[in-house]
């Protein structure tokens, strides 16, 4: 199967300190792949490198067979990659509707944008109720829904998520993960970065494990979930 995203030997450094060292992985079309690892393992830096938010010091990133390694964020996004950033990153002084409209910034097809907006509201009725409210007034969980909805508004070929469970109540985390599973079933390819290894392995097809900036392990999620090493380090056994 042809890979949608192919990352080869990627390194990221902040002023000499290496955050990611020689990471190689791929995500095939239609897959839901997760990357698990402890806080500070370099997961967020990896996502930022993929989306042009930090400089890639070494290695290559290919999307649909074409190099995107050193492109600016807006060029990468235009090719069909959307990121739900860490901490959600909603535009707090803009309304829910305006935030969603920003998600469709690169699109011109007004009729289909409206149809997608209706779908997002169907997926998250809470957002519909609060569509004229400033995003900053939403609860953490609602902001996460908004961030996911906003990313989907770009009709991404690949959806990247950075710690969507962070800071949310367990019930809300459940809801967010169910939504991700539903989005994946609709055919959107997902690469999920998550500290909550249990849930991430539950909903994903394959997984990668990151430690101190390096990818140390990869397997199907079912296999990772019973791997003794993973169980000890990330599943609290």
């Amino acid at each position, binding site marked *: 199967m042809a890979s949608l995203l192919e990352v080869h030997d990627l390194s990221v450094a902040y002023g000499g300190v290496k955050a990611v060292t020689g990471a190689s992985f791929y995500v095939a079309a239609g897959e839901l792949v997760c990357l698990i690892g402890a806080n500070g393992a370099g997961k967020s830096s990896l996502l930022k490198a993929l*989306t*042009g*938010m930090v400089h890639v010091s070494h290695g290559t990133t290919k999307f649909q067979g074409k190099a995107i390694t050193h492109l*600016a*964020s*807006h060029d990468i*996004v*235009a090719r069909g990659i*959307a*990121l739900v*950033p860490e901490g959600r*990153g909603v*535009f*707090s*002084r*803009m309304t829910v509707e*305006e935030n969603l*409209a*920003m*998600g469709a*910034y*690169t699109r011109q097809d007004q009729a289909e944008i409206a149809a997608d907006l209706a779908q997002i509201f169907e997926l998250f009725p809470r957002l519909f109720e609060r569509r004229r409210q400033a995003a*900053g007034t939403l609860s953490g969980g609602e902001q996460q829904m908004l961030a996911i909805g*906003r990313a989907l508004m*770009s009709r991404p070929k690949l959806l990247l998520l950075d710690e969507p469970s962070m800071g949310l109540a367990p019930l809300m985390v459940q809801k967010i993960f169910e939504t991700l599973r539903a989005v994946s079933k609709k055919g959107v390819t997902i690469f999920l970065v998550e500290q909550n290894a249990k849930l991430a392995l539950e909903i994903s097809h394959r997984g990668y494990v990151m430690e101190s900036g390096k990818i140390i392990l990869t397997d199907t999620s079912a296999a990772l979930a019973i791997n003794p090493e993973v169980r000890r380090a990330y599943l609290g056994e």
Partner: protein
Amino acid sequence: MDTFLQQLINGLVLGSVYALVALGYTMVYGILELINFAHGEVTMIGAMVALTVIGALVGAHVDLPGIVIVLAGVLAAIPACMLLGFTIERVAYRPLRNAPRLAPLITAIGVSILLQNLAMIIWGRQYISFPPILPRTTYHLGGATISVLQIFILVLSLVIMAALVALVQKTKLGRAMRATAQAPQVAGLMGVNINSIISLTFIIGSALAAVAGVMVSAYYGVAHYYMGFLLGLKAFTAAVLGGIGNLAGAMLGGLLLGVIESMGAGYIGDITGGFMGSNYQDVFAFFVLILVLVLRPSGLLGERVGERA
């Protein structure tokens, strides 16, 4: 009562010009958190370019109504200032985007001095007078008078401000500008080209400055290579008064500052028993600046200082 009404009219006219210039400061600050101290000089260049064109047309004895000649000057000044604003950002500020904040601030002051000196070389040190080609009609309003030029300045400023608000609040482009101001990196993730938005912000601000520059020189009847300095400082004061980074704040601050200054100039003689005259007008703007900085540093409509979402 007559003095009050007259000074109110004068203040609103002057204030609407301050507001146009203040918008340029506040838009750039909103996106880059940079105080573009060269912005006053952009206003001055606008006045100079317009006066050059107007002077040439008048000198050539072109048979056109005065208002058309002035309009030609404005239409020359706007693209000239847009190009200048774009160039300043591209050459002086963009390379310092990730530098400590003091670096672009000092650079801004440098650009300001550079432009003053360039203007002095090109247009000389002398005052350049605005040819008396505009209609001089005045209307009586209560006990006060208002000139056609004053009405024109006030109305045009308000129209431009309304257009700017509509652009920022109602259009896709405006939404991208607001998103960039709130969270530039996330705006990039939405597909917004941040650099284009920043360039555009400078271009729009400079166009407003061009119009303001022509207005000021027409109103006072003169232009001078140093005129941008004081005008820029006052517009900056207006932006701080309204809450820097806030569009409505810049408009409110501009109008308010114009009225305060004008009232101050109108009554200072009475208050001090003739000891101080209206030549102390400029004192009020900076008195206001000090008061705001001490009592309410975030300005009238500003909500955040130092920290951003």
